[in-house]
């Protein structure tokens, strides 16, 4: 029964992830559509537009929180699976940080997006075709200040969790654990002590994912609060696009290397 339980756990975890990818895809489409609609109707009611965009941002964050919650329930049964997920392409797996993306990547993406085509607009500005207000309004000094502060806090917390992970991984080699492992080799079959030690480590790994997830969602939340609704929607749309693209590139290169998996 134990064997069966674990395979169905794995199946459920994989399903959870694939569902999340589907949500990401749908959400990405919805967000880009909303942006397009705004572009096509430049003179629509401003307040109404902001309200709609805010709703989209809320929805995205709720979906992310929902996925994190569901995943956490599954991780409690088989945490290692989430540190080495079989449903990810190798490229995706190589980019993982504590079972997900690095929260600081969000800020890097924000910087990249605000710099996108800035040169063209800067040239227009220098030729007097664009006002300073327009250009500066894309990202105000105040927003830059807030982004910078968020980045520093995020990196600090990220580093704290990274050394926490190092501690948990290093503990594997502690005398007691080594002793247990040596003994269990002679005795065959798992000793209770060994089980307890591994369970303890699993517990710490679960806590790490919990904290990392908390940091991820917190960073995302703060970021969307720094941004105006339109900026936030733009950011979310591109962050989803990036996630999906990395998956696609990863699957392609896996196939090229003769690694085949479902989907």
């Amino acid at each position, binding site marked *: 029964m134990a064997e069966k339980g674990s395979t169905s756990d794995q199946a459920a975890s994989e399903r959870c992830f694939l569902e999340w990818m589907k949500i990401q895809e749908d959400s990405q489409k919805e967000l880009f559509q909303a942006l397009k609609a705004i572009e096509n109707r430049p*003179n629509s009611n*401003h307040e109404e537009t902001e309200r709609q965009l805010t709703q989209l941002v809320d929805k995205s964050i709720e979906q992310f929180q929902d996925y994190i919650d569901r995943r956490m329930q599954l991780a409690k049964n088989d945490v290692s699976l989430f540190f080495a997920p079989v449903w990810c392409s190798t490229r995706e797996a190589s980019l993982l940080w504590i079972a997900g993306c690095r929260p600081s990547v969000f800020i890097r993406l924000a*910087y990249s997006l*605000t710099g996108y085509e800035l040169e063209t607009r800067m040239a227009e500005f220098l030729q007097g075709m664009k006002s*300073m207000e327009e250009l500066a309004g894309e990202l105000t000094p105040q927003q*830059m200040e807030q982004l910078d502060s968020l980045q520093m806090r995020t990196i600090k917390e990220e580093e704290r969790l990274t050394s926490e992970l190092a501690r948990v991984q290093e503990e594997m080699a502690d005398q007691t654990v080594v002793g247990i492992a040596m003994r269990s080799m002679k005795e065959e079959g798992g000793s209770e002590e060994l089980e307890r030690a591994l369970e303890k480590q699993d517990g710490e790994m679960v806590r790490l994912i919990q904290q990392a997830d908390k940091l991820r969602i917190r960073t995302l*939340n703060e970021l969307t609060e720094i941004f105006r609704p339109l900026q936030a929607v733009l950011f979310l749309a591109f962050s989803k696009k990036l996630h999906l693209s990395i998956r696609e590139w990863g699957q392609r290169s896996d196939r090229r290397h003769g690694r085949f998996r479902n989907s």
Partner: protein
Amino acid sequence: MTEVHCSMPSGDDEDTPAKCRERRRRRIEMRRLATVSSANPSPSTAHHQKENQTGTSGFEKKRGQKTDGDGNPEISSSSSSGEDVKTVRASPSVPQPVFGMMSVSGRSREMEDAVCVSTCVLGSENFRRQVVHFFAVYDGHGGPHVAALCREKMHVFVQEEFSRVISTRGENESGGGGSSAGEEVKFEEEATWRRVMRRSFERMDEVALSTCACGSVGGQCGCHPMEVALGGSTAVVAVLTPDHIIVANCGDSRAVLCRGGTAIPLSIDHKPDRNDELARIEAAGGRVIFVNGARVEGILAMSRAIGDKYLKSVVISEPEVTFTKRESEDECLILASDGLWDVLPSELACEVARECLQGVAATTTTTTTIDLNAVPQIEEEAAGTSYPSRSALAAALLTRLALGRKSTDNISVIVIDLKRS
């Protein structure tokens, strides 16, 4: 570790989606209100915070306070931990400089830049009763501690050294008869400033050499000696008087003057492969080795710096000083770390800053156009709670441009509006 938790906006488990949604709603609501009340702007809290940090120096007689009356000093500052603004107002009529700054860690995971602005660093007590403002950018290496020390102390040293010169001269001058020839005064002033800057950098270096990264002075701490030896910082210091701009530089941060549309560098980067610097290094027994660019002993990519004990005697802290007479077509002065200059030529930086400062007065656009890149609600943030000065917008724009050009370093920029200062 615990600091991080404290600085996060709320305690554990409180960031529920519902709460965040609530906060976002409130933010939008507040912005709407700000737009409505934009007719009577209120001073920005950010400014107050900055100015309340007013330093520990005993020279400051009075704390600067931003008011909204006439002659309101348009001081705008933005950004992160690594900066410091000090304002001392000797009397209400003292003219305040107009400047903006931005200092971000950018694509680097560590922040080693620091900036410092001290307005009215010298009040009317100096020999020509001129008000003098101080601006500086410091770009640390091997840790942020030397740059942080510079931010704390350099302007104080400049104050002290200047006061010392004035007090000795005061005694001599009181006997002498009245006003001497203008040229002579200028010459004297130039010599005075060169001396003040040299002495200030010298003292700054002494402090840096005796202070450990942990902050303790004189090697009393248990830290490894290398902790003291490894850190260093660039320093580009600009002093603004009503008639002159004095720039003292050590390292590869840079000051550029925008005059009548052309960029005039007021400092020359101290790179190890600069002919004169290379000769000096070799004469001092050092070597320049090319490892990822020219580096002193293959280590440091600049030939002068504050600190850097292990390379001392080769890497010196003596600044090069320029003394420039201000002219009517001077537009602005830009000080920045190499995070900006590595990706942005001086000419383009000047052009951008100049365009920002020149622009016609803000037209309160009420357009509701939204396109992907240009977000139109500038009037909300801009005219609302805190209207950032043109120079602050210029500093922010330059920073963004550097980020857009994939600068991988910390970026610090100060833009001083010379037309309005």
